[in-house]
């Protein structure tokens, strides 16, 4: 995969200084992985913001339609109108289907950097024996590159969600709903 060889070389030039900064390999591994996670979160947030901006009318319309018929189906139940309940429930069902698949697109826009980064981690660490460096104390269990990266990514995501920058795309989306 020639294009990924080039891509990985570019990522190497950016990330390797962080992996090599501490003298010891284990802190260096975690520092570099955490920096990569932060880069993934930032790239994901930027592309999610773009996706929301481009699709806000459609997403807002789909959400409103689903919510409207959901509420209407409950009102129909309260009024004892079973036919209206089934009708509204069925329309809400269809709107849910559209909503579900638009969430796939939103998820893709947020998470694609994670898989590119996992590819980079796989390229560098797939054959590394982690048992000597990243193990659960007093046990025979080990963490691999996948687990350590995902844990770092979750931490980075939570930290970003607490900042104003992290909340900006979702706040803008919430205003448009």
């Amino acid at each position: 995969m020639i294009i990924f060889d080039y891509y990985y070389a570019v990522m190497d030039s950016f990330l390797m200084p962080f992996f090599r900064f501490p003298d010891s390999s284990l802190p260096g591994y975690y520092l570099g992985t955490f920096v990569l996670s932060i880069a993934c979160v930032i790239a994901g947030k930027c592309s999610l913001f773009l996706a929301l901006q481009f699709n806000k009318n459609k997403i807002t319309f789909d959400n409103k339609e689903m919510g409207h018929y959901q509420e209407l189906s409950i009102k129909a139940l309260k009024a004892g109108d079973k036919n209206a309940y089934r009708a509204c429930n069925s329309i809400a069902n269809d709107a849910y289907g559209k909503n579900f698949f638009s969430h796939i697109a939103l998820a893709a826009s947020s998470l694609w950097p994670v898989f590119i980064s996992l590819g980079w981690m796989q390229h560098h660490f797939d054959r590394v024996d982690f048992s000597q460096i990243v193990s659960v104390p007093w046990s025979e269990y080990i963490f691999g590159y996948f687990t350590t990266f995902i844990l770092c990514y979750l931490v980075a995501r939570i930290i970003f969600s607490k900042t104003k920058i992290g909340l900006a795309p979702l706040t803008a989306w919430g205003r448009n709903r």
Partner: protein
Amino acid sequence: MRKSNKINAVLVVLFVLLLSLTVWAVPSFAEKLADAIAKTPQGAEKGMISPGAKPGFLGIPGAPEVNLLWAFLWAIWVGWIFSTVGAFGGIMAGVGHITIFGLGDYAKSFKNSGPELNKLLTDSIRVSNQWMVSLSAFISSINYYKMGRLVLPLGIALAAGSVTGSIIVPIITAGKIKLSSYIGYFGLCVFVIGGFLFYETTSRGQSKKKSAKAAAKAFEEAHIQLKNDAATDKSHHGVKITSWSISKVVFTFYKVEFSFNPLIPVIGGFFIAALASFLGIGGGFLFVPFLTSIAGLPMFLVAGTSALTVLVGMVVSIFSYMAIKGVVVYWPLIGMELFGIFIGSMIGPRTSKYIPDIWLKRLFVVLAIYVGIRYTSKGFLGHSIVPPF
């Protein structure tokens, strides 16, 4: 502790608990693949591994290098479908993995010479499909959970069936399914989904939707007063479980009583999760129609519960394949595909206003028939009965 912090804490604990299971001392992904390669005859012929050849897919020497431009363009097509019609996108993602990127033909070449490698590559395709089409549950779950529309007994019943299906299928089938069998069953599933799409384009399917809209509109106009009543009446909001047993759960919502047999979501959850786990398609979007149509529950309540069930089922199934069974996934391909879906999803809403929904569905019905015939015949007969043969 605020509700949003509680939700974050629960999600983090769930993820850490599930991911900590990957701390299993199993052979690394690379070892499983290396074993399969070692058992495959060496040479330059088809169905053999040439050790000195340039590594391709999954780092296998001599394997095809997926044309990333094709992968990106195909993923744009998939993203376009997700953002317009929706349901057919997962199938097209699967078609990409099986046919467009050449991975299916490569896996098939080891059918007789390297059956273990054939099955490992098939499992990799299956898990790649699952990653692609189950990611919506990640964002859906967060949104619906925040709304607090959760029926706990329903969630438990669904999760019990879903988790069981998501564990049993990978354990039973990983390393045992030949590519030909997989694409045969994939083709059958495509026929079923195509059948549903076709029904929606018929006059009966169309009239059913029209009469539902008319009934909803008539009710809304006749009962507009209810909007004001609901705004002032804050009592009896939320789900209240009245009684529960092995055969019946009764709860109220807005003073309206609902009941369901918990065995139905357990059985339904099992089969839907098993299908999603086996094929990599048809999981998430089936839960809500199943619960609203079969169990008669309001969509208002089942949407959030279903999204969470899909997420849990996805994590368990993928963990079962990857951590327990050592199935390998090629991350850069999935990353490139997700990027393509992101681009396609931005194009879709721009073009949908020029193409009526019904004509899109008719197009996908034709595609479903073609893909269904091709894969079913190729899988079960050994050759396709539609071109290219």
